[in-house]
């Protein structure tokens, strides 16, 4: 199999908004609303009925924390999101660079048994 690895040297952090009611979310609209607010790239990476995780690129965590209340108000404008009394926002630190040697030389998927042993799911 022909296979290549590519490294993306992008800075990002993960922003999570929990305590929501989510149904019929328009992710494209949500990303657009947040990108206009934060002036940077935002991608929705995980959604459940109660919370949303997003990658936010080229931004400092405190810039998000300072604007937490405003960001929650902003996302309530997106189709499919209802903010509740327990809605809260959290964000990770920016990702840290690792040595390229830590990136697997074999496909991450591997065979089913090998994956199960390494990553029980």
């Amino acid at each position, binding site marked *: *199999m*022909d*296979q*290549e*690895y*590519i*490294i*993306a*040297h*992008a800075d*990002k952090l993960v922003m*999570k908004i929990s305590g929501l009611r*989510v*149904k*019929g*979310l*328009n*992710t*494209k609209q949500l*990303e657009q609303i947040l990108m206009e607010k934060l002036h*940077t*790239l935002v*991608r*929705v*990476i*995980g*959604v*459940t*009925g109660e919370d949303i*995780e997003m990658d936010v*690129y*080229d931004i400092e965590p405190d810039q998000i924390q300072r604007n937490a209340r405003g960001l929650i108000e902003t996302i309530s404008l997106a*189709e*499919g999101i209802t903010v509740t009394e327990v809605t809260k926002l959290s964000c990770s630190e920016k*990702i*840290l*660079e*690792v040595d*390229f040697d*830590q*990136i697997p030389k074999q*496909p*991450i*998927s*591997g065979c*089913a048994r090998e*994956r199960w042993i390494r*990553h029980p*799911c």
Partner: protein
Amino acid sequence: MLNTAYIIPTGDEIRNGVVQDLDAPEIIGQIVRVYPKAEVTRLCPLYDDEDAIYNKIREIALQKKPDLIVLIGGSGGGHRFSSTLGKDYTHSVLEQCLDQRCSREIYGKNGHLWCKLVCGKKGSTLIINVPGPYQEAKAAMEAFLKALTKEAGIEDICNAMAEAVYAQYPAGAAKTL
């Protein structure tokens, strides 16, 4: 020429209606703009279940024998890197079931798999996956169709799709390992 295509969205959140499926309409629109005579079928979204995805691909490829199958979503590292993220299986399924295949893996500098694109064949059917985020799916599909109309092979198609997805990140120069 592309006459028949099946679009298969994946993801519990898509199937449950928590998130709108914006990718499939975009992909269908792109295909019929380039191939106006194409018959494109969008299947019911699949849960993030490796066996279910595997069985559906085999069923469609072997019984319907379309020219193209597009799997949407499940292209990242997902649960393998974060316990809060969904289970990403489309790339691992394609590695198991394709007769010929080619892949490109995009990693973040944190060592996490951000996206794995696989392109290959099962019998006469060309099968690809695209990432779930709308902008990345749109870019990957545009690159795919552009390469296909030039009659590119699976390696060139995979390269074109990977470059298009990579260009969606605000990253510096790519480093190929």
